[in-house]
């Protein structure tokens, strides 16, 4: 292509060009890439080179490259630590719980919205349920705190409504047993509507003639959901599920940290918050140890993603790469 175009432009016959010649011709495009690539090098690849800090005993005075090499020491320290089971367990508990409860709900909700006859009603429900997606984590945790307040929160009010006006609601914010439920259910509250968009978009590809044919054959609306709507979105559902499995170690820092207090630490300390505390709490300040834990987390995450991608390629012939 490029050769032909160049021929047309110059009127001369060009025989063969090396890829370097072609690249030189496209120099403007590389100029475009310059800033983004410099950004990547500084903010992504340079920190990646710093990952070796996990294999050293970091001393500020000596810097990353000068500190003593200790091999797997930091990792062994973590694996044999009292906190290893707790933080990995908590991370997995939260993400599996979110996955099992939070994954099917948007699929069902999207199918339900799709089946609604009132277009205005659907639009209203969509607009309102998308809204919480735009609330920041800090505000979200603030809302959770206000809602669960035993005295004046909505939770306190409903509790007294059910158990009598004289009863005292428990303070769920200080309960380690309640923490996973608070974390996961508030996440569903915030993400339910927004997560339906991708399925609603997939549902728009359903051929109406299939519905017509099914109706003529006597299928009820519910049967049409099961046999027409749902099969259409199965590929989207499976790829979304795979992505979710791939990020199973990725319980984020912000929300967990903000919901944390000393009373619920037994269930709320996850890998991300533990890493932060090992590095920046004044009593620890152990950069190498913290990085080792972080590296352990991202390697497992990468492995999970690759594994899930492989499975998806085999099962559904759709994959991320």
């Amino acid at each position, binding site marked *: 292509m490029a050769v032909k175009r160049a021929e047309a432009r110059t009127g001369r016959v060009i025989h063969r060009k090396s890829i370097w010649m072609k690249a030189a011709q496209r120099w403007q495009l590389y100029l475009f890439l310059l*800033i983004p690539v410099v950004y990547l090098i500084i903010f992504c690849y340079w920190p990646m080179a710093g990952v070796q800090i996990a294999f050293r005993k970091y001393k500020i005075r000596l810097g990353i490259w000068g500190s003593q090499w200790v091999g797997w020491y930091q990792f062994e320290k973590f694996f044999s630590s009292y906190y290893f089971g707790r933080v990995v367990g908590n991370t997995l508990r939260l993400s599996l719980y979110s996955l099992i409860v939070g994954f099917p709900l948007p699929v069902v909700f999207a199918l339900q919205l799709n089946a609604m006859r009132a277009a205005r009603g659907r639009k209203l429900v969509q607009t309102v349920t998308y809204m919480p997606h735009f609330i*920041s984590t800090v*505000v979200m945790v603030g809302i959770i705190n206000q809602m669960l307040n035993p005295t004046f929160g909505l939770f306190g009010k409903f509790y007294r409504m059910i158990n009598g006006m004289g009863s005292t609601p428990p303070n769920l914010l200080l309960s380690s047993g309640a923490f996973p439920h608070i974390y996961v259910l508030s996440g569903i509250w915030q993400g339910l509507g927004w997560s339906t968009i991708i399925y609603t978009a997939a549902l728009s590809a359903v051929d109406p003639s299939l519905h017509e044919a099914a109706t003529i054959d006597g299928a009820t609306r519910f049967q049409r959901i099961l046999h027409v709507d749902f099969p259409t979105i199965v590929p989207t559902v499976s790829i979304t599920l795979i992505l979710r499995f791939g990020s199973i170690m990725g319980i984020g820092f912000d929300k967990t940290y903000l919901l944390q207090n000393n009373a619920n630490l037994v269930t709320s300390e996850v890998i991300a918050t533990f890493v932060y505390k090992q590095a920046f709490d004044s009593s620890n300040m152990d950069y190498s140890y913290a990085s080792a834990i972080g590296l352990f987390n991202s390697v497992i995450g990468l492995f999970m993603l690759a594994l899930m991608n492989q499975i998806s390629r085999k099962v559904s012939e759709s994959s991320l790469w």
Partner: protein
Amino acid sequence: MVTQTKANMKRLFGKGQLQATDIYLTRSDRIFHVINNIIVSLLFLIVLLPLINVLASSFSSASAVNSGKVLLWPVDFSVIGYEKVFVYPGVWRSYGNTVFYTVAGTAINVIVTLLAAYPLSRRDLPFKGFFMFLFTFTMMFGGGMIPTYLVMKQIGVINTVWAMLLPGALSVYNMIIARTFMQNIPMDLFEAAHLDGCSDARYFTMIALPLSGTMISVLTLYYAVGHWNAYFNAFLYLNNRDLMPLQIILREVLLSTQISADAIVDGDTAAALAGMSDLLKYSLIVVASAPILCLYPFLQKYFVKGVMIGSLKG
């Protein structure tokens, strides 16, 4: 098929017609629709009630809030909570900071994203595979919190406004959305422009950019919401109170049981805020979220479009 899909899209996301199959209902269909509507309404209310409760509380009096009287309508209507929000030290300043970070940060984001997306959308870019790998690899693996922090320290952005603007200047995910969009610009346009001697840079400014309006609005919205809500970078990289964004101040107020005494130095302010801490929280939640939640219904179609462009495989 494509026009059908488009018609369905309209039906599902607004301003569409009913399908013929939805008009004639059997008895079992009617029961289905009743049950379906009940479940959808319940979920709708579960999402809506906390939002209304926050709004109603923020317009009530402090005593009504503290005694737990407010449910879905303001009790002893007052705007005193809103008056007090801006008495709280740092709220005005941080609000301004957040507006600045959002505007400047989004501008940087969009420019850097387009700079990367355009060349990578060109099929004739030599070494394209290598560059794509360079970008996508960072989606899957990163240096992590501490190595990144040490780099930030080394290049000297800690405790400057750059800490809020530069890290995350490019989201590879958004870059792929932009690239996919640009790839769909008809090849004919490119061929024609090229034959007329249009350079690669000129093709970008004269053809690719003007045709990417929708995509640029989607990017702008995504990045802007991200900046408005960003918390972590400020938490990790800033400790100068004058630079703090709104989210940090919000955390200080919202997540403290009592308003922190060290933040309020003068006695007058402390007295003005006494007994108001919870009313203040409700008002602050509204003040912090209102700009996005009020704008969002008008921009909804762009957000939805973004999700759909993103779900296409590039």
